[in-house]
C-alpha cells in the first residue's frame, strides 16, 4: 500500500478525479466527505495541527499520477472542516488553518483522563512539561500544539478542574489540576 511517511494512503488516492473539484453536486458532496476524513486521519497520524495554504502540503498532491489539488479545492475542503467544527481559520485571509482532529473539548477530556490515570491531581505541571515532558511521552499529548493545549486547559479551568498560573520562571505557565 502506498504510504506518505508512516501514513497508509487509501486506494482512491490514486483515482485521478479525486484531485479535481467535481462540479456535480452529489459527486462533490461525496468527494468533500472523503477529503475531510482523509485530512483528519492524516493530521492525527502525523500530529499536524496547522495547514498553511502557502506551503506545499504532501497530502494535497500525488506525484505518481501527476495530480494535485487546486487552491480552490483546498479552500473548499478546509472550509468544509471549519463548518463542521473540526478546523478553524487562523487568519482573515484564510491562509492558515488549525486542524482539530480532536476537538478542544475532547482534548480537555483526554487531559483529565490522563491526569487521573497517572495520579497527577494536586500536582503542578508546566505547560511545557505537558507538551514535551517525560510523563506525556507516547500519549497524544506529546507534541500538542501550544495554542490548542492552552485552550483545552482554559476550558478545564472554566469547569473548575484546573488552575492556570504564571510560573516562577519568566516564560512558562503552570497548571494545577484538581480532582
Amino acid at each position: 500500500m502506498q504510504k506518505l511517511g508512516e501514513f497508509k494512503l487509501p486506494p482512491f488516492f490514486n483515482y485521478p478525479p479525486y484531485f479535481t473539484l467535481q462540479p456535480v453536486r452529489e459527486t462533490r458532496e461525496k468527494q468533500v466527505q472523503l477529503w475531510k476524513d482523509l485530512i483528519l486521519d492524516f493530521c492525527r497520524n502525523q500530529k499536524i495541527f496547522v495547514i498553511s495554504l502557502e506551503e506545499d502540503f504532501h497530502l494535497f498532491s500525488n506525484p505518481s499520477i501527476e495530480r494535485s489539488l487546486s487552491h480552490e479545492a483546498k479552500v473548499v475542503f478546509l472550509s468544509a472542516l471549519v463548518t463542521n467544527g473540526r478546523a478553524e481559520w487562523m487568519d482573515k485571509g484564510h491562509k492558515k488553518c488549525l486542524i482539530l482532529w480532536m476537538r478542544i473539548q475532547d482534548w480537555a477530556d483526554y487531559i483529565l483522563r490522563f491526569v487521573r490515570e497517572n495520579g497527577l491531581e494536586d500536582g503542578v505541571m508546566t505547560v511545557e512539561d505537558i507538551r514535551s515532558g517525560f510523563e506525556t511521552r507516547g500519549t497524544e499529548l506529546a507534541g500538542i500544539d501550544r495554542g490548542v493545549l492552552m485552550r483545552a486547559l482554559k476550558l478545564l479551568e472554566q469547569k473548575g478542574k484546573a488552575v492556570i498560573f504564571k510560573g516562577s520562571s519568566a516564560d512558562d505557565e503552570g497548571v494545577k489540576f484538581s480532582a
Partner: protein
Amino acid sequence: MTSIPRLPTAPLTTSCRPVFFSGEVERYFLPGVDLEFDGSDRPTLLLPFQSSLLVLTSHRLVFIDEASASAREISLCAIIHAFPLKKSMSIRSMFASPRVRLQVSISNDGTISEKGTKSSVITLVMRGKNTDPDVFYGKFMEVLRSREWELTASANQGSTGLEGSSSGSGVNDLRITMPVVGVSGILRKEQEIWESTDKNLQDAFQDLNALMSKAKEMVQLAEKMRQKLLTTGSNSQGSSNDEEMGSKQDMQDWLLSVGIVSPVTKETAGALYHQQLSRQLADFVKIPLEKAGGMITLVDVYCLFNRARGTELISPEDLLQACALWEKFDVPVMMRKFDSGVKVIQNKSHSDDEVFARISSLAQKPDTLRKGISPSDAAFTLGIAPALAKEHLLSAESRGLLCRDVSAEGLRFYINLFNEIDSANIYTTTKVVGAESHWSELVYVA
C-alpha cells in the same frame, strides 16, 4: 346529370409536404381553399376536408389537409380551360370569396384526369384571409402556359443519340449535325455539348427567375459532371474543364448536396413561409441526421441546408423559427438545447439512456478505467461529432455516471467511483463487486 368528379389522392412526406416528381417545382401556396362542383341545386364539396392548403406546382394542383395528413391532386394536364376572373364591382362580390372556375377533363370512372371522355366545370373557392386572387391567377396561368409536365414526359421517353445530354430545351434542335469522322468528329461533338452547356449556364445566371426554371437542368448537369468525375482519368475529353472544376473532393461534396430543386421562398409561400420552411427543413434533415448518428448541431444544419438550397438562403433567425415551429407539427425531429447552450437537432426517437449505456460501458473498459475518456476518444468510439460527444459526456457527468479529471492533459472523464467508495472500508482493496476493485487492482501496484 353529370356525376360528382373525384380527385386522386396525393402522397405526402412525414412533414405533410407533397412528394414531388422529378423536375416538379412548387410555384405558389394558397391557404383556405375549397373545391366545389356546381351539380344540382347546391354546390357540392369535392374534397373530403375543408379549407385546405393549395400548393400550385409546375405539374399539379395539390390540396393538403394538415389535420388529417392527407392530400388530393389535380394534374395540370387535366385542365382544359381556366375561365378568367370575374371583375364585377358589386357590393356582393366584394365580400364574397374569390372564385376561379376550371374546366377539367373526366375519365370514364369519374376521376379528374387527362384525356378523359367527358368534362366538367369545378370552382376553386379562396376562403383564406388576405389572399390576392389576381396574384394567384397570374401565377396559375403562367404555369399552365409553360406546360412543364410535357417537358418531363418527353425527356422520360428516352433521348437517343447524344450521350447523356438531356437538357430538353430547344437549344439542341438548332445544332447542326456534322458527320462523325474519327477522333476530330468526337471531339467536335463534345465541344458542341460544352458550348451549349456554357450558354445554358449564362442564360441561367442572368436571371434568377430563369434559374429557378433551369434548376432542374442544373441538377441534371451536376449529375452528369459527377459521372464524368468518377470516370475521368487522364482523358483529354474532360481535361478542358478541370480548371473550372477545381479540387475533385470539393466538387463531389457540392454535387452531393445539390438535392433541393424547389426551395421554399417567401415569394412562393407568402405568409406560410415559416411553416413550409419548417416542414421542408424537417424532410431535409433526415438524411444528415442518419449520417451523423442521430444528432446534429444547429450550426451544421444551417450550413448544409443553405448549401443545398443554393439560392434564396435562409437567415439564422429563419432557421431558429423553423425549428421552433416543429413543436406545433407532428414531425419526427426536434430541437434540443444543452445546458452549455449548444443547440442540436435530434430524432424524437433518440434516447439519452441508450447513449449513456454506451458511454458507461466504454468507461469501464480496462484502459479507460486507468486513463479516462477525452471528448475526442468518445467522439471516435461513438461515431459522432466531437462537440456532441462532449455534450454527452457532460450530461453523463451531471447524471452521476462519470466524474471529471482536469490536468495538464486537458479534460477527461472517468467512471464515477465516488459512490462505490464505502467510507467505512476505504482501506479495503479486496472488495469483489463493483468497478472499484478492478480499478484498484490495475492501478495499485503496491
